[in-house]
């Protein structure tokens, strides 16, 4: 610990040239964490865990993030070392190798002004026009490499401005992003106060010459008909107006966003191929809109949330020709329930940035400490009314004193695999998944959790059975094992996917060792999803805070 402190003192000694008149050393505070994931790959062609460099030759891969933060003299410093060796995070079928400083920042507050330089994470509103964030499981790191200023106009009103370029692994993309947001808070002084948290944000993206040249070079090969109405602009602006209203048990968030016309890649648009036929996918020039609202009520054991979102052509990327999860400037909130069980999370709808009409209702009722009920409904269509996703879920929880808890329910899903996974002509996957979980507290330290789920479906891989058990000895040990069985297979033989895991906690360190055999599936974090190939092997993870 002491050596790390010395390292930081050396690293930041160059800042001694800054005249610090009122900031004196307070002894400083150094803290951070390490996250490391190591994968040992064991080829299993029966489940499709093969034909990648990790299974064929490398056999081992590791991803690690070491974060250090140091505060002193009124400054905050941050430094993060990232390492990816034989990593499948960037490209699930490829191997990525690199290491270096993944993030650094300096932050200083001077009266009402806050200054940050380096790699910045931030967002405006719910992130519809701008969100710089990190999702390590998908190797999304959209930090803005630049400068951010925030000024408290009043105790309740803050204005933020930032400019920079988006991080691209250990480099940056060429386009420049700048933005401004004003966020406020106002509360009535009546007996039953009503509060408002309004905000307004603007983000502008200026394409770099390389990107514009590429666009020109692409468009010059389009037929005149496909090029009609296209006007390349360097600058695109996105605006967002939002407010959170809170009145007693009711909260209402509403956000409306507009993006000026820009070139975006529409993978479904048809382009003349110049040979008399058509090919799918082309650049189109469209303005974008998003309307998003969530209304919540929470009182007397009830928790009700209604959500709605309409998205039209709201792809906002640092380079319009980037695809998948690369170069996204914004973040569109997901509109389905974030389930937790293995089989209820097997089909998760990815956010559709080009066109989506989504509604969700979530109702929770807990009349007392013994009973709890959850009902959820989500419906997502495209703007032409084509069904993309529908989910119904009912869940009941019964708690017997503090001894045991029984949770059971059923989920029904209709999932457009063609659209979400790009599997052409794949039928809508229709599932019915009953699930049950039993948590038994043996004593104050030990507990046993058993869970069972069955997914009935005739599509994709067919039906699944999942059985899991977890034995915990607080605060140190967790032992768990599960079996996932393709009981009524459509694509493969009847295959068993076992997982065994042990977790050991000691102080601020957490070690986890697992043997995993996992079927191919969609992995989502916060509505951002991608199709991950099957996994077979051993995983070791270490999380350490200091």
């Amino acid at each position, binding site marked *: 610990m002491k050596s790390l402190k010395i390292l930081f003192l050396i690293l930041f000694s160059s800042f001694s040239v800054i005249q610090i008149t009122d900031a004196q050393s307070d002894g400083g505070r150094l803290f951070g964490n390490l996250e490391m994931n190591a994968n040992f790959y064991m080829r299993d062609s029966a489940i499709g865990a093969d034909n990648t460099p990790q299974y064929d030759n490398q056999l081992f891969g590791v991803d690690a993030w070491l974060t250090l933060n140091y505060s002193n003299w009124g400054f905050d410093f941050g430094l993060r070392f990232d390492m990816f060796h034989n990593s499948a995070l960037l490209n699930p079928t*490829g191997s990525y190798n690199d290491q270096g400083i993944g993030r650094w920042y300096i932050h200083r507050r001077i009266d009402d002004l806050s200054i940050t330089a380096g790699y910045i994470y931030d967002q405006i509103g719910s992130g519809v026009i701008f969100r710089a964030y990190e999702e390590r499981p998908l190797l999304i790191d959209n930090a803005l490499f630049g400068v951010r200023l925030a000024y408290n106009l009043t105790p309740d009103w803050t204005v933020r401005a930032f400019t920079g370029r988006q991080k691209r692994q250990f480099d940056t993309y060429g386009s420049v992003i700048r933005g401004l947001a004003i966020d406020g808070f106002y509360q009535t002084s009546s007996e039953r106060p009503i509060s408002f948290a309004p905000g307004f944000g603007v983000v502008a993206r200026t394409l770099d010459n390389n990107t514009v040249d590429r666009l020109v070079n692409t468009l010059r090969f389009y037929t005149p008909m496909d090029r009609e109405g296209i006007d390349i602009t360097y600058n695109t602006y996105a605006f967002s107006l939002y407010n959170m209203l809170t009145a007693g048990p009711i909260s209402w968030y509403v956000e409306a966003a507009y993006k000026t016309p820009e070139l975006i890649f529409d993978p479904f648009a048809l382009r003349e191929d110049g040979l008399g036929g058509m090919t799918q996918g082309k650049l189109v020039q469209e303005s974008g809109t998003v309307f998003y609202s969530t209304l919540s009520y929470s009182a007397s054991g009830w928790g009700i949330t209604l959500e709605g979102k309409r998205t039209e052509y709201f792809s906002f990327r640092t380079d319009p020709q980037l695809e998948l999860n690369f170069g996204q400037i914004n973040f569109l909130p997901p509109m389905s329930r974030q389930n937790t069980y293995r089989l209820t999370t097997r089909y998760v709808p990815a956010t559709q940035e080009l066109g989506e009409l989504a509604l969700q209702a979530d109702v929770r009722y807990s009349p007392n400490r013994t009973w709890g009920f959850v009902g959820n409904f989500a419906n997502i269509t495209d703007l032409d009314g084509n069904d993309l996703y529908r989910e119904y879920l009912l869940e009941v929880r019964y708690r017997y004193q503090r001894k045991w808890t029984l949770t059971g329910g059923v989920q029904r899903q209709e999932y457009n695999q063609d659209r979400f996974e790009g599997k052409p002509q794949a039928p809508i996957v229709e599932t019915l998944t009953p699930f049950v979980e039993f948590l038994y507290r043996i004593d104050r330290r030990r507990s046993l959790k058993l869970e069972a789920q069955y997914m009935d479906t005739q599509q994709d891989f067919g039906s699944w059975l999942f059985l899991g058990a977890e034995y915990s000895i607080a605060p140190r040990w967790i032992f768990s094992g599960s079996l996932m069985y393709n009981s009524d297979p459509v694509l493969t033989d009847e295959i068993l996917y076992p997982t065994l895991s042990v977790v050991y906690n000691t102080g601020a360190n957490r070690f986890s060792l697992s043997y995993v055999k996992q079927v191919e599936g969609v992995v989502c974090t916060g509505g951002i999803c991608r199709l991950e190939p099957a996994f077979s092997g051993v995983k070791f993870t270490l999380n350490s805070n200091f």
Partner: protein
Amino acid sequence: MKHYLNLVYFAFFTSVLILFSACDEKEVLIPDFVLPDSDRVVVIEELTGVRCPNCPGGSRELKRIQEQFGDNVAIVGIHSNILANPFPNSKYDFRAPFNDQIQDYLGLPIGKPSAYINRRFFSNENNRAIPTVGSWAGYVAQELESFATLEIDASHNFNPESRELDISLIINAKSLLEGRYQLTVYLTESGIIDPQLDQTVGVIEEYVHNFVLREVLTNVTGDVLPDVLNPDQPINRAFNFTIPEEDGWWNVSNMNAIAFVTSYDVENPDIREIIQAVQFSLL
């Protein structure tokens, strides 16, 4: 309260003014395509597969590129392992170990179809294999903005009875070239009819597969050439290959040979580029 609101209004309007102070932009012109006057031949190595639903779109784009650029492009379809398992009713299996070796050597794609264009790692791309089909033609045009630094003269002889193919290559630098160079020779075949998955219509049973890589006559990663290519000292290379009997494929009248020289950097694998190629049909 009024003071606060004044501050908010001031900040709001100032910021909007700053952001929109220069809304008018000079128009970016999109010039019509004119075939560049270049002696270069650009090699497009497309990663494809019979179970890749978007690959027919990629193939159509390649056909269009071939029509637009004519002899300035040489196209190869590499059926590497991803999405390339034959269908139960497939007559042919386009996969072969050299496809995967090429893919591993040049870098895996983020998806299919993707294409290596002159094997260059373009600065705006995340991968050497470029997944945006619509941008391929632009990169080809970009490559044709320069002239070749060497010439490859090819001659060949095919004996229809023995089905023996002899290829002779003369590599001649236009000026003194120093670096690391490799020579690669491919045989490709077009017009092979077999099933293919398509994004819009599902499996097309009688799909015409073009540019399929059938054989590599050199090392898969290329035969190493001397570090110095002197214009006065042409390099001769000869290859012999017996083409298997025709069985629906190995149809010589549909086959091409492509030979190309790659410049590369041992220390930095990102620096690798095909500097010239030649293509000719076997009949």
